């Protein structure tokens, strides 16, 4: 007899979810953002199907304004584990004049993230997509099911969710419906970090502190990741020791000043932090139920 720890129980639950989807869906895919939650998901997927590789491709929605280090990490990981990678991107952004500096955040995320994602899912006919959403992230997510159904136009209807009992998931779907599956629904941010540390999961170095060229703008510290970054009048680039708690498009993602250069220090900083994880994302600001509105439109 042995007492399972909370991480062992979470791991077992996530693996069970991965296997249910592969057994019941016709054409699953994993949304791979290359962030810490995605890295944990990938690790769990590798465990679920070992010694087989995960029997589904990875889909990365690239906005064109991704951190270089993130793309390098993505390509390295895919190669190392022999994964199939699909990259979805709005190729016409430049022509349409869409960029993170001039375009409003709602339109930007719609054009660069939501639309390419929906397009890729429809084009490839994926009927189930694993996502890294966690219930502790945000109030709207706290109520979402592990198996969450989307209409043909990828909308979420929070009022019409199926009851989810025990560990029995109903994966039967109506024509043209698809499922978003959240295997790490019950993990918290602390669980994620702790698991990364315990399992020695390789993550993008952006999460660790290092000297980076930064600009202060609207109360956020932005990292100048490439020469497309437009400096406004009076702004100057300053080298600071910074890291990221969450990764998005580099001109929209705020860094935090930090000396945390290893996993324990990151966790320590997180536990002593006074701001929530999503604070660094410009997209989530605005009215307080805005995540719910975005989900209804199909944002993951």
């Amino acid at each position: 007899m042995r007492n399972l720890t909370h991480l062992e129980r979470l791991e077992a639950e996530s693996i069970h979810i991965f296997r249910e989807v592969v057994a019941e869906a016709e054409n699953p895919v994993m949304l791979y953002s290359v962030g810490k939650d995605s890295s944990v998901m990938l690790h769990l997927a590798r465990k679920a199907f070992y010694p087989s590789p995960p029997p589904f491709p990875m889909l990365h929605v690239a906005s064109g304004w991704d951190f270089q280090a993130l793309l390098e990490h993505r390509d390295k990981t895919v190669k190392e584990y022999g994964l199939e990678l699909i990259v979805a991107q709005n190729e016409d952004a430049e022509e349409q004049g869409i960029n993170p500096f001039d375009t409003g955040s709602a339109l930007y995320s719609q054009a660069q993230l939501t639309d390419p994602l929906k397009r890729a899912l429809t084009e490839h006919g994926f009927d189930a997509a694993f996502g890294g959403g966690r219930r502790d992230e945000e109030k709207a997510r706290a109520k979402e099911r592990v198996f969450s159904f989307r209409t043909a136009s990828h909308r979420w209807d929070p009022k019409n969710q199926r009851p989810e009992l025990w560990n029995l998931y109903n994966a039967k779907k109506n024509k043209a419906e698809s499922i978003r599956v959240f295997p790490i629904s019950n993990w918290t941010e602390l669980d994620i970090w702790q698991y990364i540390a315990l399992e020695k999961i390789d993550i993008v170095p952006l999460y660790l502190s290092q000297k980076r060229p930064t600009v202060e703008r609207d109360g956020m510290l932005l990292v100048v990741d490439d020469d497309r970054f437009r400096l406004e009048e009076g702004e100057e680039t300053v080298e600071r020791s910074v890291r990221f708690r969450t990764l998005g498009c580099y001109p929209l993602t705020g860094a935090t000043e930090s000396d945390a250069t290893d996993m324990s220090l990151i966790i320590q900083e997180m536990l002593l932090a006074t701001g929530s994880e999503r604070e660094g994302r410009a997209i989530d600001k605005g009215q307080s139920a805005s995540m719910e509105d975005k989900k209804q439109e199909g944002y993951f």
Partner: protein
Amino acid sequence: MSVQDSSFQMDSLIAEDIDAYLDQHQHKSLLRFITCGSVDDGKSTLIGRLLYDSKMIFEDQLAALQSDSAKHGTQGEEIDFALLVDGLAAEREQGITIDVAYRFFTTEKRKFIVADTPGHEQYTRNMVTGASTADLAVILVDARKGVLKQTRRHSYLVHLLGIKHLVLAVNKMDLVDYDQRKFDEIVRDYGEFAKEAGIEDFTAIPISGFKGDNITAAPCSNTPWYHGHALIEHLETVKLANTAAQERSFRMPVQWVNRPNLDFRGFAGLIAGGTVKPGDMVRIVPAGKTSTVKTISTFDGDMDEAVAGQSVTITLADEVDCSRGDVIAAAGDPPEASDQFCSTIVWMDETAMKPGRGYWLKLGSQMVTATVQPPKYEIDVNSLDHLAAKTLELNSIGVAEFSTDRPITFESYEKNRELGGFILIDKFSNATVAAGMIDFSLRRAQNVHWQPTTITRDDHSSLKNQRPRVLWFTGLSGSGKSTIANEVEKQLALMNRHTFLLDGDNVRHGLNKDLGFTETDRIENIRRIGEVSKLMADAGLIVLTAFISPFRAERQMVREMLPDGEFIEVFVDTPLEVAEARDVKGLYKKARDGELKNFTGIDSPYEAPETPEIRVNTVDMTPVEAAEYIISQILPLK
């Protein structure tokens, strides 16, 4: 903050020795619990308080909360903790929670997942959902109001779902001046009800979610008369269900067969009971073959032992047949397999239960077609009385017998949640319509065996020099089903084929004369005709049936009774206006005048086939042409 919050004070360890903190956190166990209470019992406030005290709320969230409190809050200048947990925008405006939300917090000893469910009567299904994964339930009672109808309802439901640990949290003690007599009175009332409901044990704690009394630490100066644990202390020390599960016999439902190459064949699943080691004798249920466990293979290397609650991949020493839906179990004590059982069910869909209709039933990794008998009784969850019922509506609970199209492996819910709990799925809407908890299998299923016959189905059909088939004519009343079917039979007879025509009106004079025209009776009508058609097809005949058969689900049920390709759906697609204008039997007129109830097309729906094998109509074709077309579509006959 007062001294009462001390059990949450971990900041110093985090700041001074993060590795020691992480080591402690890593070894924490997990307790899942559910909170239930009526609308104003202060449930959201309590959860908000737990999150706040355990520092799960950040400054930016607190700032948003403060501005929200001013806008929607009900606590004046104070922070309204309820707003923190009432997630969805719509319900925030109504000031009620309407779904299950999951919250997380941690203390020094344990990590907690809270299922927060609403109190309204109409949301029983959400409570049942939240309770299905919980080890413990916190039942909230407003000290001013005492034990209410809903308190009883919630307690009964969590007891039904098999939750062994119940906490009666008598909340808002601050509003009754921390009066001990008030508390004792509520505990006594609740005790009486608990006994009646079969609840063996519960722990009562006087609290104030708003003020924080007896939440994190006891004793509290406001309740010097209370000597028990604070709520959190109790949650931290309760025994966990997953250790109890390890004491049972080994069971693992097979989720997926892992076959990366010819040398490896692993069976992946989550262990639902007991423990397993290499060398253990196991039995594959329902087939009954035995083998030995060769390895327990994981990403982190082979394991010496795995226990209930772990997801593993097992390899066996022998090449036995085993696939998704099978259960690998201790060879000496396997679970039973049966195709008939009795179960308590909670109906969760707007559309009421349809006795006789086939539903998908999912239990473990098994998916079968199940039909449910009319309920033996419905349970009034307020009085616990047994009521007579013909069906179950949304949020009602009853007991009924089930039969499945093939044997499934299960245990009683009381013995094993994972192998005793199931969901029912509607075959057309795909909605999860019910949750079931199996009570026991029915003896007759174990004693009625199939009698093997010497002259087989194939012998019958080859003697007749034809392939048996069921031509299932469906369409509105007056669409021409009987006329066309009759013509098809005449032409087949001329081709020396052995046929039989089952006609709707004729069958209702004999076999089905006890049935009326309600939805339930119509389903039973079609079920019987399906069974008769199947027997005749077994005898080698080409069967023609002419029934309105308005529901897709029942036509699908008959299709599934027969071997692939033998059920041929013939849709007589005559529009309603045409059928009604003809009105050969004068029935449409009667229905329009209100003399005839439940008439298909008028006040009862007709669900047209989406992809019938054959489609004909009597507008563009004569009956003879339609019959010729149908025969051309089923050639060759042998």
